């Protein structure tokens, strides 16, 4: 108490210092977490990508051998291609979810019920869902082929056929992600100011014109966000592939890049090679995202 009256300035600064100290201690926790669990592993995997490492003993430095091997590895290229191919599902999923969001944005009964129905797959465990779909895709008695049989179509053995296994996985991924994109679109649609539509209607714009000139531009930020996150997520598709086609599918036709990395690292004792592939994947994802941001900025200029 006495100190307070005598040296107020100093007191204030000590108070600040303790507060700062406490604040920094709190800040330190996530920073340390980031350093230990993200930055260190990241840097280590960069190092590991230049080594021959079986994951059991110490890595041995081999320079760029892994990267050379990668360029000559047909399975690496094929799994990259498979991953890219499956990303074709992303635009399809976005269109469907926008249509759904438009439908559910109208004044009608049971919208909450439908929202729940479409959102349910999002919160379901991917492993459980994958097993469910594996059964649904069964060529003999699967739900999908039985349904197709009703309309006279003899369905393929989805997961065992090189031509259908990728579409089968894409359909499932679209179904799983639909609710999430739909919800975001719904929120975006509801925040579009009413007066824009009213003004357009007064000027004689029809429904289609309103959709093209008001709705689409207004939900654009959401579309951008969804495209970016889906591409990042889609390049890492793994769980459903590993569960539904544990051997990488017929003739390696559903093996994705992350599945291949995982298989090399944990099944075939090539952690070093696996690290180098994940570095390449990481760089590619970074590059694609960078380009997307660039394109988005340019498009925004053209709108203004």
């Amino acid at each position: 108490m006495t100190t307070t009256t005598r040296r107020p300035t100093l007191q204030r600064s000590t108070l600040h210092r303790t507060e700062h100290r406490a604040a920094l201690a709190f800040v330190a926790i996530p920073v340390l977490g980031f350093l230990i669990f993200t930055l260190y592993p990241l840097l280590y995997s960069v190092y590991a990508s230049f080594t021959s490492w079986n994951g059991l003993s110490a890595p041995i430095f081999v320079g760029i051998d892994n990267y050379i091997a990668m360029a000559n590895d047909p399975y690496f290229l094929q799994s990259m291609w498979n991953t890219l191919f499956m990303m074709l599902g992303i635009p399809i999923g976005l269109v469907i979810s926008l249509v759904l969001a438009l439908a559910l944005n109208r004044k009608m009964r049971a919208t909450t019920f439908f929202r729940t129905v479409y959102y349910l797959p999002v919160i379901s465990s991917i492993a459980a869902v994958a097993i469910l779909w594996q059964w649904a895709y069964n060529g003999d008695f699967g739900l999908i082929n039985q349904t197709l049989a009703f309309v006279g179509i003899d369905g393929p053995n989805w997961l065992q056929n090189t031509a259908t296994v990728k579409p089968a996985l894409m359909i499932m991924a679209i179904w799983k992600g639909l609710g999430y994109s739909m919800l975001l679109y719904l929120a975006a649609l509801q925040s579009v100011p009413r007066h824009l539509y009213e003004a357009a209607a007064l000027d004689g714009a029809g429904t289609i014109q309103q959709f093209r000139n008001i709705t689409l531009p207004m939900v654009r930020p959401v579309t951008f966000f969804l495209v970016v996150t889906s591409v990042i997520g889609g390049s890492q598709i793994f769980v459903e592939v590993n569960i539904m086609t544990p051997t990488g599918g017929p003739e390696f036709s559903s093996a994705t890049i992350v599945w291949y990395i995982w298989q090399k690292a944990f099944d075939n004792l090539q952690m070093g090679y696996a690290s180098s592939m994940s570095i390449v994947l990481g760089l590619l994802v970074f590059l694609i995202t960078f380009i997307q941001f660039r394109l988005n900025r340019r498009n925004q200029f053209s709108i203004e």
Partner: protein
Amino acid sequence: MTKSRLTAATVAMVATAGLLLTGCAGGAAGAGDSGEKKLTFMFRGGPDEQKAYEKAVGEFEEANGVDVNIIVTTADQYPTKLKAAIAGRQIPDVFYIGPGDLQAYVKNGIVKDITEYVEGSDTIDLDNIWDHGVDSYRFDGELIGQGAIYALPKDVGPFSFGYNKTMFEAAGIPLPDVDEPYTLEEFVDVAKQLTKDTNGDGTLDQWGTGLNVQWNLQPFVWGNGADWLNEDRTKVTVDTPEFAEALQWFADLQNVHGVTPSVGEAQTLDTYQRWMKGEIGFFPVAPWDLSTYEKLDFEWDTIPYPAGVSGETSAWIGTLGIAVSNSTKHPDEAVKLVEYLTANEEAQQTLVDAGIQIPNLKDMAETWAADTSTMPANKQEFLQIVTDYGRGLPGGNTYNGEWYDEFFTNIQPVIDGKMTAADYLAEVQPKMQAFLDSANQQAGIGG
């Protein structure tokens, strides 16, 4: 101000790091200081295995005053979790290991050489355990199958062959001999007789067989005198005429003889379901199928696999081992735990009763096989595979199984009849050889 902030940051970081460290140290010290010995046992398996092992572990804890911490994972997650534990230097004291991983784990000093412990042990009698089981975990630095012991078998899994007895009787076909294997021609002949349309609706609803190439090709290849590798496991030998003949014959079952469900229906799950519905004449029978097959509403039994030109039947044996970590603080107790898990009679009985494995102990297995009141009556076939004519899967004897997986990756066109076996084998051999060479090079053996 900047300086004080920096100091504060450093203090905070050191303090937090200190907290983390003491947190970790606390765990380790707690185990050491209490005077009680603590072991970690990591394995994978279903509820039956858990039940059996918890019992055996409990007994072991009581007898030895050791505390065992059990970690169970699913089969899928096991390799990932174990490798993560190894990379993090938190290796469990006792854990499962497949023969396919043994070489790498020994070379890298992960698993302990337990030869001395088990040979001088009074808890376990090595002579009473299947040779194939123990030999699968011997390694002399070059070849699996000889040298020091690095693990004991959790089980041995003879993959036998079975037939639907009820179907044979209905068709009036003489039952197959349990000692004299069919020749390949006889097998096709019988399978043809069994393949028919029983209800007269114009489509087949009963087939001779329906085999999955990945799990059923081996006996026919071996039975035809061919193999995947040469003796010292440095050369892939799939491009021989005998091998091509066996693979072609296997594919022809479907494409030429038509004794299996059609291409679209021929996946494992489906033929497995069809066998259980009584629509398939011949189908593989593994020990882990016994509990499921017990509920089948037809009679069935086991027989030797048909033999090719070698005239001898063969089959593969799966196995999983239990190893001790090289870094364990209590090797004596850890090895003793392995012995309990391998040879504890009660635990073995629980597993056998659950219908998921055959006994690990020879004398116990004899008693089990002598009981012909439950199916299959010819349980002896399992024991003959283990003691007499079974072999380990080809991929299990090398540093990694990549070369072996490659064999099956693109095989479907052969099975579908779109490519001849000889063409395929000529094409796949160099690719497999490249994988094998790189595996052997990693292991530091061969060329």
